[in-house]
């Protein structure tokens, strides 16, 4: 059947093309073909994902990829996307898949909050001259500490971060071995943590990275046994993900290569199906049971994180999770990324992380249980200012996923689900995967974290604060701009100028 969908991108060669055929080699979607009879490069616009790989790698720099200017008759109700989605579904009868976080223009609250700086009344601090503490401890904080006779005290296990930023769950299988390793190396060099997602951790990586790994227990229970759970700094129970709250996931058989299969402990080439719920968790009481089982199997040596998507009633859900014994609560907002999700879910389910942090922090404080649990916020953190705002709203730390992928080369082309990532990130194809140099990618990640950390220190210094701890839940450092009354109330901040 001929596709009736217009090409999304137009490819042009503005200058002298040498016919070196680099673009043909670089494009994993088969867009560029060499026409020998006319000694010309031909490009099939219809296949282009707009990943910009060929443009970056064209030695002459003559390739340009633009969003296509051809258009249907403009119609406010029937946008191009609505028309084309229908055409695609009429052609295939299938659920539309996509990658990355939602690209829809929901209000980004980060951009409607402004950060304070002190002027005359209390001095600002220069982080280049004075110590500035970003070290963050995640876990349950005791209500009181009892000193034993040997002058030591019992306390619950915590995670120690040198900067309040962790890499969020990205599984080996969804991302390539090289990308997975780059995250692990960068986390250990930067004094923070990476998260294995639901794909397990290859045995050869365990001794090297166990101190910086958060391992995930998701509904599919892939690659999980007692040994794996004990090879980690913390264990995360994944209930939900911001990009696809309430639904499970399927890693298609094509992506289940030999090594991926061994790591997930399933046969090669079968679908790896994660059911929508954990079938041993149908209530808060059941969640309490899995939290306890994990604490048992790890001998109470590791904090347990429970990760949920930000949805309606998130504060009540959070309260239940804390009461179920979670040491850390991770909340993933609706703009959170994904390797593959049904588009309709990604773009319509959940709430923005900013509102969720504020609602949860307030609820836990009101109930007097805020110290029993740390909060990691994720899903839409794009820069160091977002980190500062998240913490001022009540988070202890943030998860970054998309930002980390961009640091490694991702251009948000949203084709992760095809497994043909031209940047070697979201693929299991050995040829494509080789494009990602592990050393270089990990260095970029380390650089990103150090740049953000420095910026955070500058912002803290400007507020006259010298420890990130004093920023947590310090909403007085934020003012809203262009927000409605109800939004200001929910965020718990005043309007700019007040």
């Amino acid at each position, binding site marked *: 059947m001929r596709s009736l969908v217009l090409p999304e991108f137009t490819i042009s060669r503005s200058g002298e093309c040498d016919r070196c055929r680099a673009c043909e080699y670089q494009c994993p979607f088969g867009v560029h073909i060499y026409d020998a009879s006319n000694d010309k490069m031909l490009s099939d616009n219809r296949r282009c994902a707009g990943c910009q790989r060929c443009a970056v790698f064209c030695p002459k720099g003559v390739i340009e990829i633009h969003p296509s200017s051809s258009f249907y008759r403009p119609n406010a109700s029937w946008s191009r996307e609505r028309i084309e989605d229908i055409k*695609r*579904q009429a*052609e*295939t*009868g*299938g*659920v*539309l*898949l996509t990658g990355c976080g939602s690209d829809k223009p929901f209000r980004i609250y980060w951009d409607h909050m402004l950060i304070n700086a002190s002027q005359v009344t209390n001095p600002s601090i220069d982080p280049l001259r004075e110590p500035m503490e970003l070290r963050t401890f995640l876990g349950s904080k005791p209500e009181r500490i009892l000193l034993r006779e040997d002058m030591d005290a019992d306390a619950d296990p915590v995670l120690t971060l040198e900067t309040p930023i962790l890499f969020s769950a990205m599984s080996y299988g969804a991302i390539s071995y090289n990308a997975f390793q780059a995250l692990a190396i960068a986390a250990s060099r930067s004094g923070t943590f990476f998260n294995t997602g639901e794909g397990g951790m290859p045995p050869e990586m365990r001794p090297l990275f166990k101190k910086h790994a958060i391992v995930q227990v998701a509904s*599919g*229970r892939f690659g*999980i*046994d*007692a*040994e794996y*759970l*004990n090879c980690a700094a913390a264990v995360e129970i994944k209930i939900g993900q911001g990009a696809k709250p309430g639904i499970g996931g*399927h890693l*298609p*058989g094509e992506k289940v290569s030999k090594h991926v*299969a*061994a790591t997930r*402990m*399933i*046969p090669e*080439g*079968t*679908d790896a*199906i994660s*059911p929508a719920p954990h*079938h*041993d968790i149908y209530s808060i009481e059941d969640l309490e*049971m899995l939290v*306890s*089982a994990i604490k*048992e*199997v*790890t*001998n109470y040596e590791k904090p347990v994180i429970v990760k949920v998507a930000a949805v309606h009633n998130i504060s009540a859900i959070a309260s239940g999770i804390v009461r179920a014994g979670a040491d850390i609560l991770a909340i993933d907002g609706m703009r959170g990324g994904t390797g593959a999700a049904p588009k309709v879910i990604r773009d319509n389910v959940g709430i923005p992380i900013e509102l969720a942090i504020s609602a949860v922090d307030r609820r836990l404080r009101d109930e007097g249980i805020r110290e029993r649990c740390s909060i990691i916020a994720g899903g839409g953190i794009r820069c160091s200012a977002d980190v500062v705002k998240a913490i001022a709203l009540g988070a202890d730390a943030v998860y970054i996923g998309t930002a980390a992928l961009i640091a490694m080369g991702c251009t948000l082309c949203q084709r992760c689900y095809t497994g043909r990532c031209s940047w070697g990130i979201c693929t299991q194809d050995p040829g494509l995967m080789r494009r990602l140099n592990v050393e270089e990618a990990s260095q970029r990640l380390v650089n990103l974290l150090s740049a953000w950390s420095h910026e955070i220190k500058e912002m803290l210094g400007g507020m006259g604060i010298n420890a990130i701890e004093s920023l947590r839940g310090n909403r007085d450092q934020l003012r809203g701009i262009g927000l409605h009354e109800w939004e200001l109330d929910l965020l718990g901040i005043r309007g700019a100028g007040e």
Partner: protein
Amino acid sequence: MEISCSRTSNESAIEIDASHMDTRELNGLLRELMLAGYERVVLRNVCGQRYIGTRLYSPERRVMNIEIHGTPGNDLGAFLFGHRIIVHGNAQDGVGNTMESGEIVIAGRAGDVTGMSMRGGRIFVKGDVGYRAALHMKEHGQKRPVIVVGGTAQDFLGEYMAGGIVILLGLYGAHNASFIGSGMHGGAMYLRGPVREEQVGSHVHISRADETDMEILRDHISGFIERFPDLALDLEHILDSEWTKLSPRSSRPYGKLYA
């Protein structure tokens, strides 16, 4: 805390009265015993303590034999790492949840999600099992988990099953479960006696057990008979019955779902 334990003549065996212990205490004690080199523990008066066997992971793979008198609580042997647990009585929900290896023998009935996500080892249940047993059981390489049940199972047996073997002997009555094997994409289930088309999920293929299947059955059913000699079962008689095999139609049940 006073621990009443009496050493038996065998130095590596010990008996414990669990009547006044909570879950964490009991499991902590078991761990200490394992690390101290005990290989056999008899627990008396167990009443609802959960996760028994779960805290017994050791990198050097120490293995213990735990005999339980009473009724253990939920998640018995969850994440089990090579140990052997025998229960002289009934068990509750979550027996062998995500177990890696070892063996669990229940001389009674077991509750819901028995053997959920297990990826190795064997579970033998003398009576029936509850809902969603063998849910998302999986196998890899040499590791092939097995559940043998003397009676039958409730609905959703083998849901999302991705590997392993389930055997229901149907000793005490017919199989009435519905939605058997919904989303099944690996492994095999063998039910003694008939199973109707409308009892199984759309991803399931129904067939008669063939010769290779009978070898598998012989192996595991003799294991079952050995563990429950009081049932006085005759292996040949059991094998010589109508055996229904349930297997997945495809290892890619959702391959065609997406555009």
